[in-house]
């Protein structure tokens, strides 16, 4: 598949994405940007990690590069050719493995080569070699259902590598696996990659039959472990916040000071955006109430998760590094950061660099009994969470203190996609319910104001 011409300077560029913007259209016709002007070059011999929270469009970017979806503007080129369909030079490893359950391991691995019309004997040889390489010897005739998650993902790797792609794309390949299995597989991947690289970077090698790897992840540790370059993406819309080079030799040691520093830097970058949020929380409440639910979306945090984080923080003396908390709890960015965002939004904690510190408000919340805690939470969400505040205000404005959820969904759709509007409202409902601000009738899709004292205005609700 490869042409070993004399390498030119630009010859080692495999995939180039230029100013890729992807917007989805909201139901009422507004454009909702997911990716905003992202450029990326993948060269031979490197592993690049795309790191970001949910909503950063990292998977969308990967799919643009794979040629599975078209960018709204900007171009993606493979070896200088613009894509108009699935990228012919890449293979992909999926988070969910994406194996065909009715084919055996070997048939799954052979399938992609069959699509390329590789003769049968050669196909079998290559498949067996890939199966061997990835440590699946003896499982050729097993069906995916018979295998554990880790073994299934090995099949995913074998299938991708068997076609000897120019570049290997990986979409959160380890996040469906348990921690130990993921670490194990990640380690083997590093070993194979380095084995291949030693035989000659950029060249085809027996060790690892691909020339470059692009991995999407929300696990900071994973990115730092694997990548030569880390591209950190912001959320809503996704832009490249920073590009970090990782020059540490692989396999990398977590206790290496350089490693720790890098992890802290990434946390710093990812929470850096929060400073704006924090500022908003600290200025006069009037200014916050001027912020609309669209300007300041609610983070996807449950009240239980939030109070858990605050309790841990309180128990640790009120201040700790985010990386340490994540490490100890085995949390990934997607799990931890929404909780941090929520705590900061509700002024229960502040973030400085890669550290998080509990505030007095947060401490009071932790030590209070349920009822006072609910009252405090109610006060905080009304003041600092624009959507909850808006809902309470709107409910107060109605005669009978109830409104259809469709009303709020319509408003939210102006700034969010259909799904995200639903998510936002669900979060607001969960928070408001816990705070006993309003009740929610799921069957009729109605929000009803909770009235602490007997109704004075008369029982119009019955």
């Amino acid at each position, binding site marked *: 598949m490869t042409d070993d011409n004399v390498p030119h300077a630009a010859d080692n560029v495999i995939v180039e994405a230029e100013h890729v913007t992807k917007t989805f259209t909201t139901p009422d016709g507004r454009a909702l940007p997911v990716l905003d002007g992202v450029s990326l070059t993948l060269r031979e011999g490197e592993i690049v990690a795309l790191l970001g929270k949910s909503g950063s469009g990292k998977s969308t970017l990967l*799919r643009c590069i*794979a*040629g*599975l*979806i*078209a960018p709204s503007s900007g171009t993606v080129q493979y070896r200088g050719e613009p*894509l*108009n*369909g*699935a*990228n*012919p030079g*890449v*293979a*992909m490893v*999926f*988070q*969910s*493995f*994406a194996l*065909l*359950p*009715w*084919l055996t391991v070997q048939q799954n691995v052979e*399938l*992609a080569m*069959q*699509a*390329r*019309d590789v003769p*049968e004997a050669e196909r079998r040889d290559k498949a067996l070699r890939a199966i061997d390489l990835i440590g699946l010897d003896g499982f050729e005739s097993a069906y995916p*259902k018979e295998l554990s998650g880790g073994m299934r993902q090995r099949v995913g790797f074998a299938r991708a590598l068997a*076609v000897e792609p120019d570049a290997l794309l990986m979409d959160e390949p380890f996040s469906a696996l348990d921690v130990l299995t993921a670490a194990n597989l990640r380690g083997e991947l590093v070993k194979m990659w380095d084995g291949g690289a030693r035989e000659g970077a950029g060249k085809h090698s027996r060790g690892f039959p691909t020339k470059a790897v692009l991995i999407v992840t929300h696990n900071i540790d994973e990115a730092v472990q694997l990548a030569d370059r880390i591209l950190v993406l912001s959320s809503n819309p996704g832009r490249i916040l920073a590009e970090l080079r990782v020059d540490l030799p692989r396999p990398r040691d977590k206790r290496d000071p350089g490693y720790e520093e890098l992890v802290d830097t990434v946390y710093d970058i990812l929470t850096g955006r929060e400073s704006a949020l924090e500022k908003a929380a600290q200025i006069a409440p009037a200014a916050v109430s001027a912020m609309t639910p669209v300007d300041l979306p609610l983070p996807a945090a449950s009240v239980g998760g939030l109070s858990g984080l605050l309790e841990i923080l309180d128990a640790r003396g009120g201040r700790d590094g985010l990386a340490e908390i994540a490490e100890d709890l085995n949390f990934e960015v997607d799990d931890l950061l929404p909780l941090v965002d929520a705590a900061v939004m509700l002024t229960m904690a502040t973030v400085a660099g890669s550290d998080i510190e509990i505030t007095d408000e947060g401490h009071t919340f932790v030590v209070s009994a349920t009822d006072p805690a609910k009252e405090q939470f109610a006060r905080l969400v009304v003041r600092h969470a624009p959507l909850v505040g808006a809902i309470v205000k709107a409910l107060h404005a109605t005669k009978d203190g109830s409104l259809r959820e469709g009303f709020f969904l319509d408003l939210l759709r102006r700034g969010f996609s259909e799904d995200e509007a639903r998510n936002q409202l669900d979060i607001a409902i969960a928070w408001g319910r816990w705070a006993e601000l309003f009740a929610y009738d799921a*069957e009729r899709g109605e929000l009803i104001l909770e009235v602490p004292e007997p109704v004075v205005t008369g029982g119009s609700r019955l």
Partner: protein
Amino acid sequence: MASWGMFPSRGVWRRPAFRWVDAVVLVGVAVLLFGLLRLAPSLNAPFLPSQAPSQVSTDPAELPYYAVRSLLRMFIALVLSVVFTFVYSTAAARLPRASKALIPLLDILQSVPVLGFLTVTVTAFISLFPGSSLGLECASIFAIFTAMAWNMTFAFYQSLVSQPRDLDEAARIMRLTKWQRFWRLDVPSGMIPLVWNGMMSFGGAWFFLAASESITVLKHTYALPGIGSYVAAAMQQGSLSKVAIAIVVMVVMVIAVNILFWRPMVAWAERFRAEESAAADKPRSVVLDLLRRSVVPAAVARPARPVGRLLDKLTRPFGLAEHPLSKPLVRQRTGDVFFAGLVTAAVAFGAWRAVTYLHVRGDLGQFGHAFLLGGATFGRVVVLLIFATLIWVPVGVWIGMNPKVSRIAQPVVQVLASFPANLLFPFATAFFVATGMSLNIGGILLMALGAQWYILFNVIAGASAIPSDLREAMQLMGVGGWLRWKRFILPAIFPAYVTGGITAAGGAWNASIVAEVVSYGKHHLEAYGLGAYIASASANSDFPKVLIGVVVMSVYVVGVNRLFWRRLYAIAEARYSL
């Protein structure tokens, strides 16, 4: 899915509410029927097959031969249904423009009582094969086909559009060809719903087989050698004992087909299940186990492999299962508008032609009469559903919640549901004649003979799918009596009941065409209803009346489905699905 799923599969009814496109399609179907009617030749005697007998022999010794002929018709129709399913579903799922028309069309088609149109299809097929009984054969197979195809197509289409996104992406990035994708991904992932719906539709199709083997065209009755026409002949002779023999043969046939064909198919389809399931309630089949141990699989696979390889090569020029990422927007819009305009214009022209045709013949006034008759039949369907519900829901719950009972009752109910109720009509008619009961009431009973089983069948499936921890929790809390029914059992089986109710109602409408007019010996009973209207119109080959009757019945069925069943289904899905 429990070891025996609901029928029809869920996706069939989970569709949006009435839209303008449905109206266009409804009219379009009427136009289609009208076109068929116009295609049918002016019925001159030479066109009619001369050698086809008007009655088959009622010698019981002929029965095995007749059974084989009937079975052959069923399987030919099944093969045609599968081919139709593959082509139609794939077009609907992969061609965005076509899907806009194809899916509503399918939706309406499954509500059209094809039985009423049998005469018209017979004449159309006869014109294709003038002077031979092949036309009759085709018409019978076509009637059976219409009983199988729609549900299978819906189920397969549903599996195509709900394919997991990651598998779709994997197929595209592996650059599978269209052919490879269809056989490696599309068909395997739709195999389970296809087999289950195929099995159930096959069961329902026996009814159509029995009804379509003996047809009256232009006051002349034709009979194809088959078990259905045997019963028709026996009925005319008033020989209940011969009918009884035929029923025994029929039961044996239904059971044999289940054991030798469908059970192995269901067990075999399990290999295409994506998620791991508990090994305990996995469908098994002794026949399949035997087959697997034999040399048959290898003997089949060996010659098949090079054929497969060749086909793989030959279909390569059709290209990859890919669509270009970007299309010029303007051209696409223009295409959409052009397509929609073309379809609407064609439908409008056809509708105009149909209306003028009826107007010229002075039949337009018949519509009011037909709607009135439809009301009577509608009343029968409602009464039937109420009684069937009151009787079969408690029974179904009892069976479904007792694993031991349901193990025995399952196959029995399945045979009952498959058994063509029209074979039992002679006994019922004899009873009516003896007791002097009017067919206006008795018709309900006849319609119920076939339709009620869908309710029982689905209620059993629903009740046996109730998680045991829920049942234990109810027991521990001491929830019993009426409270147990109101708060626990009825809500839990509601979605299954609705599915059964829709199917039963549809079956009852179709059955009304054969149930509202019955003859036994020299007795002739007729009820006041739309079914009788269609039946007598087609016996007299009064095509305009057939068209009016069928269109009115379709409107009733589609209307009730949209206004009542779909809403109930939406509630069931949103509120009561476990």
